[in-house]
């Protein structure tokens, strides 16, 4: 009961909620996170964000992350959609949905999915700065590892 997609096209948040919950009445709550491209980074204006991934690994890696979430919580379904390619500020990057009988499981699972996706799925971001056209690969943040590590004790 998991939808996992990597795509260049944008996703339709309302349609993904509808697909996850269609015909079901056993769901008590859906936790969700949507990540979007910010227009600045480190005080510099961003022209575009380019996402690349490792196609042969991305599917299996996202599958492992979803399976781990399903092992930890009683989920009634989840959705992970990640975009790749060149995105502009304000555009959607990633959508995570987790449906569960109760709200805490839904919220926790959504948080877990995005934390693990940020540290375990093979995506890389490159920022193009507005003033100079210069490009720079985004560096991994220690805070992301710390966020993912919080779940280790769980």
């Amino acid at each position, binding site marked *: 009961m998991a939808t996992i997609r990597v795509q260049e096209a944008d996703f339709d948040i309302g349609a993904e909620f509808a697909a996850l919950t269609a015909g079901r009445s056993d769901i008590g709550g859906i936790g969700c996170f949507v990540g979007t491209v910010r227009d600045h980074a480190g005080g510099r204006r961003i022209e575009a964000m380019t996402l*690349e991934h*490792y196609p042969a*690994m991305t599917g299996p*890696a996202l599958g492992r992350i979803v399976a781990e979430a399903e092992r930890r919580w009683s989920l009634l379904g989840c959705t992970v959609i990640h975009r790749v390619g060149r995105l502009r500020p304000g555009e959607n990057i*990633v959508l995570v949905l987790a449906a569960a009988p109760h709200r805490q499981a839904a919220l926790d699972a959504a948080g877990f999915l995005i934390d693990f996706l940020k*540290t375990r799925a093979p*995506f890389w971001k490159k920022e193009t700065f507005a003033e100079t056209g210069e490009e720079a*690969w985004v560096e991994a943040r220690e805070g992301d590892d710390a966020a993912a590590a919080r779940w280790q004790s769980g």
Partner: protein
Amino acid sequence: MQTPDTRTLKILYFAWLRERTRVAEEEVSVPGSVASVGALIEWLSARSPGHRAAFANRRTVRCAVNQDFADLATPLASGDEVAFFPPVTGG
């Protein structure tokens, strides 16, 4: 010709590792002594100045063997797909 003493590996590079090696994918035959990811990094570093630059700071290089995260001690077998990349930054 591949002898029992060599391994054929498919190597992939992503993000700034690809930009430094200037190659996205290459097939290499390595001697039998190159039996782990750590040894492979040493061997690849000698291929070109770009490869040397890509692997210069090992702490910023991550690896997957056959699409699963690996470390320096992970053993290699002929036919393996070995990918090198920076720490991931998706999400």
